[in-house]
């Protein structure tokens, strides 16, 4: 079988299986095999990626259940890395880690399914040309659009490595997903493009001045913002609300396209995302949220190595939309499951483990993943971005474990969820002490340019009160809150108001599920002004008990009572509260 005669390519491209151990496969007699190439294995032609080569012996990771694969089975070279079909028809649909549509897949996912691509998908798309024949175009330039392919404009751009004169372009009309729609510099351009899932798509330049991604979650937007094209991670033990927070961000953030990757997580959660997003209306487009969303679902009981790939599938899809000029967000829940897949495979190969059994390249793999986030000038000249938000699920809630500590080094914002806050049903349970936002200064400059010069000062004051209130809370636990001096009791009150009136947010409330920048700033201003008025009252001799007896209900309920855009109503509450506090004697 290891003959290399050019006359018998079919034979020369196949090796023979010699080892099968779950997803770890080894074949011998595979000539000229390349790292990263896909081989088809066994009678079901399962996809397996080459991860090590020794002579003509190839070690592979299989992306499917390998039950029934035998020693002696053929392993046929494809010469290609694993690629997906990038084109219209992604938005509003769900795919597995190998980018095969789940929407039309059978009820029970066994390996004998169609391979990558959407063969048999007969959907016709309307192509509208945007340039005339004879136009000179470069990489990434727009050739045409496909109306009706989701909530954002689907643009067909000149593929990477292609440029020149448009020799021919299709007239407006209906075409298949893989139809040829133009000829540029003598090369065919298709409506959909095959692109290797793991390969980053190139761009012209990175942009460095940050602009915020508005998430609609106050604790993030006011205290720990993430920039468009930034990378953020949310971490916390089970039950602290990671998935809930990510779903809220996916629903309400102001990106054009959301890629939601369920990586080794619960099937019921994916069902929930699909149902919820199909029902919810996107305030920005008026369409359904699902129409700006691509779901990549590789649940915890689906094949492990496809889970490893699903992260790259998600980020590849986001880059595809970035190159059309859109702002995309990748939500990866959870990167810990991805790291575990790496570990599982490394262990089967017998690699020497580093920390907690994880392979030594974990840090570089994680860094490379988060570095694919970025706000860039695309090849076509657009300002566009990919923001990456990953969940980390630390075993035992232990934040010193390898995935958490490595992630902390490479992300721009870290949102740490706290079990005590979650137990007290304070959601989102993002804790101010364990979280950070490295781009806060740059984003403060952006806010200043946009007309909110107070943003940074407001944030600093809020963080200061929260830290001080935490310190006093531990003291109050020992001596009782009533033994504290008046000023300190006002700090404790301020901490409570900040937590309950500003940071906690009710995902189920129509008014409070999302929050505009203006309303968030007004709420924070309200609480800071109330706290200041309380201190003023103490200074003029009012007792702490008298102040604590004031009904702060209107402040605490303001977020839920007032519509998501209604900053004026909050100003009215503020005026009434300040009058009440000012009248105390």
């Amino acid at each position, binding site marked *: 079988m290891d003959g290399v005669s050019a006359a018998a390519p079919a034979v020369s491209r196949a090796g023979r299986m010699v*080892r099968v151990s779950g997803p770890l496969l080894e074949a011998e007699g595979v000539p000229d095999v390349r790292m990263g190439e896909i081989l088809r294995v066994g009678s079901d032609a399962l996809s397996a990626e080459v991860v090590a080569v020794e002579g003509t012996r190839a070690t592979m990771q299989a992306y499917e259940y390998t039950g029934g694969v035998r020693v002696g089975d053929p392993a046929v070279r494809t010469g290609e890395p694993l690629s997906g079909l990038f084109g219209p028809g992604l938005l509003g649909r769900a795919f597995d880690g190998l980018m095969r549509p789940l929407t039309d897949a059978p009820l029970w996912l066994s390996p004998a399914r169609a391979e990558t691509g959407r063969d048999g998908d007969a959907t016709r798309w309307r192509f509208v040309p945007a340039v005339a024949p004879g136009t000179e175009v470069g990489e990434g330039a727009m050739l045409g659009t496909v109306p009706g392919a989701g909530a954002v404009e689907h643009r067909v751009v000149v593929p990477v490595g292609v440029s020149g004169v448009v020799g021919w372009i299709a007239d407006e009309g209906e075409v298949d997903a893989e139809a040829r729609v133009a000829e540029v510099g003598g090369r065919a351009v298709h409506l959909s493009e095959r692109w290797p899932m793991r390969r980053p798509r190139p761009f012209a330049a990175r942009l460095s001045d940050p602009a915020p991604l508005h998430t609609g979650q106050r604790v993030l937007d006011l205290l720990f913002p993430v920039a468009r094209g930034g990378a953020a991670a949310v971490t916390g033990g089970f039950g602290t609300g990671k998935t809930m927070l990510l779903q809220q961000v996916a629903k309400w953030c102001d990106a054009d396209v959301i890629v939601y990757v369920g990586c080794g997580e619960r099937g019921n959660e*994916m069902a929930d995302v699909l149902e919820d997003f199909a029902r919810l209306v996107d305030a920005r487009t008026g369409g359904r949220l699902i129409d700006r969303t691509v779901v990549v679902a590789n649940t915890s009981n689906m094949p492990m190595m496809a889970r490893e790939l699903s992260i790259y599938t998600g980020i590849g899809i986001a880059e595809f939309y970035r190159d059309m000029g859109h702002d995309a967000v990748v939500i990866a829940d959870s990167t810990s499951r991805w790291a575990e897949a790496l570990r*599982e495979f490394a262990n089967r190969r017998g690699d020497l483990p580093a920390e907690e059994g994880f392979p030594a390249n974990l840090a570089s793999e994680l860094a490379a993943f988060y570095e694919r986030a970025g706000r860039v000038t695309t090849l076509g000249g657009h300002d566009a971005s990919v923001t990456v938000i990953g969940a980390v699920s630390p075993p035992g809630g232990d934040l010193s474990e390898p995935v958490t500590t490595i992630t902390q080094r490479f992300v721009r914002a870290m949102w740490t969820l706290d079990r005590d806050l979650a137990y007290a049903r304070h959601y989102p349970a993002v804790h101010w002490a364990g979280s950070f936002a490295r781009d806060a200064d740059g984003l403060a400059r952006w806010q200043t340019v946009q007309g909110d010069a107070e943003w940074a000062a407001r944030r600093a004051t809020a963080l200061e009160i929260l830290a001080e209130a935490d310190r006093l809370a531990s003291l109050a636990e020992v001596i009782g809150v009533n033994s504290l001096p008046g000023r300190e009791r006002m700090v404790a009150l301020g901490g409570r108001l900040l937590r309950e009136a500003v940071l906690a947010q009710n995902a189920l409330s129509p008014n409070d599920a999302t929050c505009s920048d203006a309303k968030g700033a007004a709420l924070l201003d309200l609480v800071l002004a109330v706290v200041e008025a309380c201190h003023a009252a103490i200074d003029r001799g009012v007792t702490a008990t008298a102040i604590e007896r004031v009904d702060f209900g209107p402040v605490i309920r303001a977020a839920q009572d007032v519509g998501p855009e209604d900053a004026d109503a909050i100003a009215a509450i503020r005026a009434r509260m300040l009058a009440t506090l000012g009248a105390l004697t």
Partner: protein
Amino acid sequence: MTGRAPSRAGTEAPAVLAAARVAHRDIRAIRGPLLVVGGVEGVGWDEAVEVATSAGPRHGLVLDLDEDRATVQVFEGTEGLAPGAVDVRFAGRPLHLEVGTGWLGRVCNGRGAPLDGGPPVTGARSAPVAGWPLNPVDREPPHEPVVTGVSAIDALTTLVRGQKLPIFSVAGLPHLRLATQIAAQATSAGEQFRVVFAALGLTHADIAYVRDRLEGRTATGELVLFLNAADDPAIERILTPRLALTVAEHLAFEEGADVLVVVSDMTNYAEAVREVSAARREIPARRGYPGYLYSDLASLYERCGRVRGRAGSVTVVPVLTMPAGDVTHPVPDLTGYITEGQIVLSPEIDARGVYPPVDTLGSLSRLMRHGAGPGRTREDHLDVAAQVLAALAHARQSAALAELVGASALGETDRSYLAYREAVERDLLDQRDDEARTLDDTLDRAWRALATLPRHELTMVSPEQVARRLPSGEEDDHG
């Protein structure tokens, strides 16, 4: 596993089976639960294996194929096996189980062999015991409650059809009593409610208790028992929950029943997985457990759910004991990451004589907001549950303060919270282990407990609900 499910090429062909049924006698090594067979050809990974010995057959699975060597995991263990005295036959396909309604009313051992004196169970269909992943797109999000008749669960951590909700316990607490009570009395609004109970490594005394308590439901043909005792082969525990789930999936998605699967104790399962991993000399992740324990547990727990357009559901309630009560131990920790909440039992509450000793604040049903409330249970359910929990959180602070300064030094409000906590434990949480409460009874009890608090403390229920539900004797209390 219907007409839509493609069967793997060749697995059903008798010719392949016959050809594969060659007896292999070349045993190269025996190590822990593993058997290394040489001279193997044409055997697929994950194939079922029969090991014939003079004392009867044992069963196994192919874990690893390396050239002509197959490593086989033997469910009954390798105790007493001698190279040269065994015949190994490969079945040509993964392990299958005949499924059907014939399982109902039966009591079997951990391998599915009858313990009740009846004939072996047969069925019209044969299904792979490892199951296939359910396409997430075809999942129907869980929406309707399972009423367990246990107030602590029904009121505060409602179990939802298609959910996986574990019981986290500590050795010595009555988790088996609770699990058995749930198995004995749970119902749902669906037409058929069925229970599959899998015991993993339980003592004979515990097994006798389970059989006795579940006898009624067994006799009416609503329940299947799979019993692996503490002195049964440990590796068999890897198989038992898969048999239970395979039977449950058939009853649910082919027969349209709402099936509750109760598995106790998953810690014993995880130890069996660790034993196999150690015998394979795999690199351990935490506390000697293999790195794939998460995926392995998920391959069980994720078999719960509902299917779009079909009646029936699989709900899973696994029970596990946390070694030394440590919730960060890999088994409860990984379970918590997979399941949709947890019911935690607490030694402190047990010590106060409350059964079931549910730690209400540490427990959570993530799907409760989908499965309870208006149109699901009762319109006040979610609000009253939130109020009960918020007040219990306050009561915990009051109790901590009372320990510091003494109960007599507490303010009036804090004292009422202490009385409230007692009322909750006495009137709502505490019940007999054969008492099946209706949901109305449970929720009314919650209101009665709330009545011990000053009215102005009830901020999470609406004035209308208070007027309608709060027992009237306390209405003059305005704090």
